[in-house]
């Protein structure tokens, strides 16, 4: 009996299995339980996501259409003259054409109330058309202009006609007038392109995301231009050239720490250094982009280093072996192979930067501006700060517009993440 074989004659296979079998059912149960816990956790996570998106869509979908009124407007040469453009009585010609539906409104107060059906921006829409083509003066043109927010809410059923008149935003006479327009077939509810085409406004029916979209574009461009080359350069040095010693360890730890610094700290830094010290313009995307670049930099460095590490050493050695210099190895072989990983990391970093709010609030990018910026040095807002401003506005119409703006932001984030996944799937090589 020098050594006992596992399945020897004195311990037949049957007896081992016999010993295991009683515990087997319990082990299977445990495994099943673990699986169920996992499923439940996943279910809860998906449930939360569905709840979030569901509630956003539920309040936000209404903002994707907007009530409009189509009017035939006679551009009276007595009111509007080519030489006085862009000034002119555009509201009076609109009033004249709208009053055709309400001949009984003769008193000033009543006419004002009738004009309240149209958005304040209607006259400017008309003006812009005439300024673009002054030959229209003297003709009758058909314009489709937004209604003001209250009537939009009425048509969307957000103002309840059953509410007692005293408590309603619109009194019975106003509701009746709107119904007459509706009966005349001039009211429509097309897609709300203003949401993407217009810049911010205090009137919900005119407010749009153009300023925020352009602002976010400049932010990301500047963030990319700064953080991408710097991040890659730093990562290449750390991965390919830096000696492995205490100093490089310290740098590595600090980069990891930097990636975990709350974003608001970068905002304070931007305020103190870029704006107060360097005297750069407040609220401008250039400053925001630089702050976001500082924030994105560690993410890109870490992602790039991981991608460089994943390139097998045999490739470097082979290249060195045929006489390539270190620089040729990096730029000719390692970097191209690591590029998909680097791009993925960069896009994820930029997506993070796109949704960042706190640092932008500190450098004043939550201002109210009614035009889109022409360049990175002009004051602008960004998508998340625009959401912040709208969420705080008293007008009812902004409730749904806030949700709609969040949906727009989310769709950009999803698109960016999808691009990252695509790049990874399409170009990544395995060895």
């Amino acid at each position, binding site marked *: 009996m020098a050594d006992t074989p596992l399945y020897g004659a004195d311990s037949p296979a049957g007896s081992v299995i016999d010993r295991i079998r009683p515990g087997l059912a319990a082990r299977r149960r445990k495994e099943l339980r673990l699986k169920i816990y996992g499923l439940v956790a996943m279910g809860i996570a998906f449930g939360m996501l569905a709840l979030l998106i569901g509630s956003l869509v539920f309040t936000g979908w209404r903002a994707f259409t907007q009530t409009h009124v189509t009017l035939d407007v006679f551009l009276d040469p007595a009111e509007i003259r080519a030489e006085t453009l862009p000034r002119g009585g555009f509201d009076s010609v609109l009033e004249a054409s709208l009053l055709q539906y309400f001949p009984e409104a003769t008193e000033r107060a009543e006419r004002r109330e009738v004009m309240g059906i149209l958005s304040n921006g209607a006259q400017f829409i008309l003006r812009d058309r005439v300024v673009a083509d002054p030959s229209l003066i003297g003709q009758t043109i058909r314009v489709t202009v937004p209604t003001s927010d209250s009537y939009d809410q009425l048509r969307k059923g957000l103002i309840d006609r059953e509410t007692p008149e005293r408590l309603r935003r619109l009194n019975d006479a106003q509701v009746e007038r709107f119904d007459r327009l509706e009966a005349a077939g001039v009211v429509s509810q097309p897609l709300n392109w203003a949401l993407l085409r217009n810049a911010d406004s*205090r009137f919900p029916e005119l407010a749009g995301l153009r300023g925020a979209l352009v602002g976010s574009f400049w932010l990301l461009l500047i963030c990319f231009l700064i953080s991408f*080359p*710097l991040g890659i350069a730093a990562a290449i040095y750390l991965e390919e050239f830096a000696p492995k010693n205490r100093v490089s360890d310290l740098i590595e730890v600090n980069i990891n720490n930097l990636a975990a610094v709350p974003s608001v700290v970068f905002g304070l830094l931007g305020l103190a250094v870029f704006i107060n010290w360097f005297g750069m313009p407040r609220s401008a995307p250039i400053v925001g982009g630089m702050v976001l670049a500082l924030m994105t930099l560690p993410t890109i460095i870490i992602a790039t280093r991981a991608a460089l590490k994943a390139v097998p050493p045999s490739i470097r050695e082979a290249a060195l072996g045929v006489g390539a210099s270190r620089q040729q190895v990096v730029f000719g072989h390692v970097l191209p192979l690591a590029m998909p990983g680097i791009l993925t990391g960069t896009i994820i970093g930029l997506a993070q930067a796109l949704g960042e709010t706190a640092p932008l609030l500190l450098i004043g990018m939550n201002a109210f*501006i009614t*035009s889109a910026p022409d360049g990175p040095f002009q004051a602008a807002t960004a998508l998340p700060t625009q959401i912040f401003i709208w969420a705080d506005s*008293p*007008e009812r119409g902004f409730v749904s517009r806030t949700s709609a703006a969040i949906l727009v932001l989310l769709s950009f984030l999803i698109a960016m993440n999808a691009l990252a996944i695509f790049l990874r799937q399409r170009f990544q090589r395995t060895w």
Partner: protein
Amino acid sequence: MSHATLTVSTVALIALAATGAFAQSRQEIRIVGSSTVFPYSQAVAEQFANQTGAPSPIVESTGTGGGFQAFCAGIGEQHPDIAGASREMRPSEWELCQQNGVTDISEALIGYDGLSIVISRQNDFDWDLSLEEIYLALAAQVPVDGEWVDNPYQRWSEIDPELPDIPILVYGPPPTSGTRDAFVELAMHEGCKELDYVQQGGFDSAWINENCSRMRTDGPFVEAGENDNLIVQRLQADPNAMGIFGYSFLYENLDTLKDVNINGVEANLDTIASFEYPIARPLYIYIKNAHRGVIPNLQEFVEEYMSEDALARDGYLAERGLVSLPDDVRAQTQEAVIAGASMSAPE
């Protein structure tokens, strides 16, 4: 090598572009200050940009105190031109302005804002509170049987048996907000003065400042953040909860919310303008006169802000909930501010 060159040249290009742009002078008017004045400045800015085609003014909501800090930081295009305030400029802020060379300032009273205490319309009770009752419900410390103690009241009926037997739950602004300052000063301090304990004790205003300024933190008063829309949503969900916010939010939500009368007075445009409604406060804008004629369009913008179109009772600011000034006061203000009259030191 080409990659490295590219990187270096990109960085250089950005640096060059940056320095180039700082040289160009500011074309837009910049407005900072109170979040209560923000919607009114927004309205004027948009109207002004639409009508004149000038670059749209940049309006930032920084809070009254933060606004004065930026406004008083100096003269020059990196400093804002106008500050909105939901209270008068304080002597300390005036000092700061003087030190930094901002000596010529126009003060413009643009109107009034009422702070309303609001409850859902689903609540059937006809609410009418005195300032004393508000104080007893919300203060950190109140007198009970002649002792100054931590607030023991948990239900409205404990304060006055006539009031409904429901728990006290009031959502209000956080300490950083100008609305909170105004509420403490106008409602809590005044309510505190009405208490028998304070009147008989003969305490002075310093004592009141020290002892009656704290809101309770044991639950019935909830700091709900700066977002008034969130408070509106919570009130709509809970018919027994009350909220404290500016009148413009009540005005936008009159179909679902009603105000709690104070001393029998309802909050509306008339009672706020006449100060019959006790928690009303003035709103100001401050204009840096040294910037007039230097920053393009500033004078025209001030004229728009001071115009009848904006400030009158049927003006577009009133549409947003601003309570306008009586006609004679308004005419005086308009004239003085457009002419650039400079204010004297606040006391």
